[in-house]
């Protein structure tokens, strides 16, 4: 009896952990790739190495892009329609409910974290604001050469969930995420989704 109970606990906990990996990986495998403009803010060293604290252009969206009349409160979930630009994807509209979109658009789900005092701008987070990298790499990416440009390859699944697929420097992939490895590209592929 104790054995069965213990087995149930082990299976349950293992499934929870597998689910965490599975859901993220499903997003990465089935999602639509997009490229986002970003800045690295204050990379900090955790016990596991460095992580990039990323700030995207789509983290701050003018409130005039809100396409419905419902009021926006902190912690509301909003759907942001992104349209392919050159080369970065840009926010074109905000909705409380997931809208229908054109082929060259994608909908990303974000949580309202704040808004400016005059309510002109909403701040949203998408769950792609942190990226863990090998220890010592954080400072290099925070302070790239003056001509270097950092961008993030993101994928968005059909439910609006997002995941980081790759970190790009000058349009070349520096890190690429896979299920069982992080490809640190010694010879960048030049893929700029």
């Amino acid at each position, binding site marked *: 009896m104790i054995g069965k109970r213990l087995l149930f606990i*082990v299976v349950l906990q293992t499934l*929870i*952990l597998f689910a965490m*990996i599975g859901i993220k990986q499903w997003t990465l495998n089935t999602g639509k790739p997009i490229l986002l403009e970003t800045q690295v803010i204050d990379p900090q060293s955790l*016990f*596991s190495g460095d992580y990039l604290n990323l700030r995207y252009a789509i983290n701050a969206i003018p409130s005039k892009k809100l396409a419905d009349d419902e009021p926006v409160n902190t912690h509301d979930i909003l759907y942001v329609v992104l349209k392919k630009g050159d080369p970065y994807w840009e926010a074109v509209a905000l909705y409380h409910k997931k809208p229908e979109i054109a082929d060259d658009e994608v909908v990303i789900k974000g949580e309202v974290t704040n808004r400016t005092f005059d309510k002109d701008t909403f701040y949203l987070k998408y769950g792609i604001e942190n990226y863990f990298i090998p220890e010592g790499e954080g400072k290099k990416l925070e302070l790239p050469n003056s001509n270097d440009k950092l961008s993030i390859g993101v994928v968005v699944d059909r439910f609006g969930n997002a995941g980081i697929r790759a970190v790009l420097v000058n349009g070349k992939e520096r890190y690429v995420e896979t299920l069982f*490895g992080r490809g640190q590209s010694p010879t960048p592929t030049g893929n700029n989704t």
Partner: protein
Amino acid sequence: MKDETFIQRLKKELPIWTHKGWVKKENQQHILNYVTHKTVPETNTLTFTFAWMGVILLSAGIITFFAANWGGINKITKLSILFGSLWLAYGLSYFFFHKRKFLEFDLKAAHLFLFLGLILFGANIWLIAQIYHIDAHYPNGVLIWSLAALVTAYLMRSPPALITSILLATLWTAMETFDFLRSVHWSFLALWILFLYPCIQWQWRISLHIALLSLLLWSFFIIGLYVVDLFVVQVYFLGALSVFLLGRILINYPLTHLIASTVQRYSAFAATFALFIPTFPLNITKERGLFFDIVPSAGYLNTLMAILLCVGLMIWLRKQPKPSFNRIAFILGLGLFCFLCLLMFINLILGSHIENHKGMIALGYNLIFFTGLGWIIYIGYHSHERFLINLGFVFFALAILARYFDTFWTLFNRSFFFITGGLLFTVGSYYFEKHRRKLTESIEEEDIK
């Protein structure tokens, strides 16, 4: 090994038990002889102290291993270590549960590895979140961990797992309250209710205390958020008073007897603490009150409902076959309660003009508070509950200290303030302690009689 502490205590207790008629006088010596010559098995306390330290060190070791080598390890290895250590801990737990050759030792070892498994599960949540860059609503991670510990506590009847679950749930509600909601986190109560069953059913006293402490802390979060609004503090007091009254009712029922006596202690503390707050002439401004969106009509309604709840419980309490208070205590308590309700409604009516009346309101609350402390000591003495007596004396001393600072800080020269305060409190503490001891000792004597 002989348990000398137990023998010494037994020597003290036996005459009392004989006096009460529980033990015959001629059997006293037989009991003492039996206990003195009986050797009890080793309890392995030292072994398990080291074992628990070992578990903590092992957990720390696993985390620091990752700290030093995180960048150099590929995902497969990371995942193998994370899942392998989890399964190994539970495997060892099963081994000791199954073996139980040296019963007590193996059972403790089994629970130890069960606890290690839980710690590793929590660590794995965060580490997998890092490996796969999962940046979600982070209190959910703590909630999942807490729920997993709760399931473990239920299935394996493990008190350490339940304590882990309670502590994590407290962390979860603190994160949700202060990092996200900035208002009352009611969902915590739904989870908290689940902690009660094992505490009552399997009589886990330590877990019960921790669960009640957790609830107390959660309720203090409400005061922390709304302390600027006296309406909420008033309703909080009435809520705590309701729980105290409920505790005194439930103590008469065998199923809830164990939990009721503990519940009423914590609720008595919460109620006294809540009533202590409005004794200060707080600097409340309308703007600060409005920040938390408290609607005055809700203040009236909630206060009225809480008063009605208290009255209902008082009626139920009076109908109990074994009265919890004597007649005088009940009438005195009722009088105090009526006076307090009146003060609460005056406070509500004054509402936004409270700035002009804060001194008078505080004065009224001070009158009630000090009389209430006298009432607590009185019922503590008559119902032989030392906790209530101690509670009364502690808050009495705190209130005197607070009023001394309120009143004389600006009036006296600083050195004179401290000299007078020092003398007052040295003499006062001696006087209070003498009376407190006198009361508690007289209770003990009456118990012996």
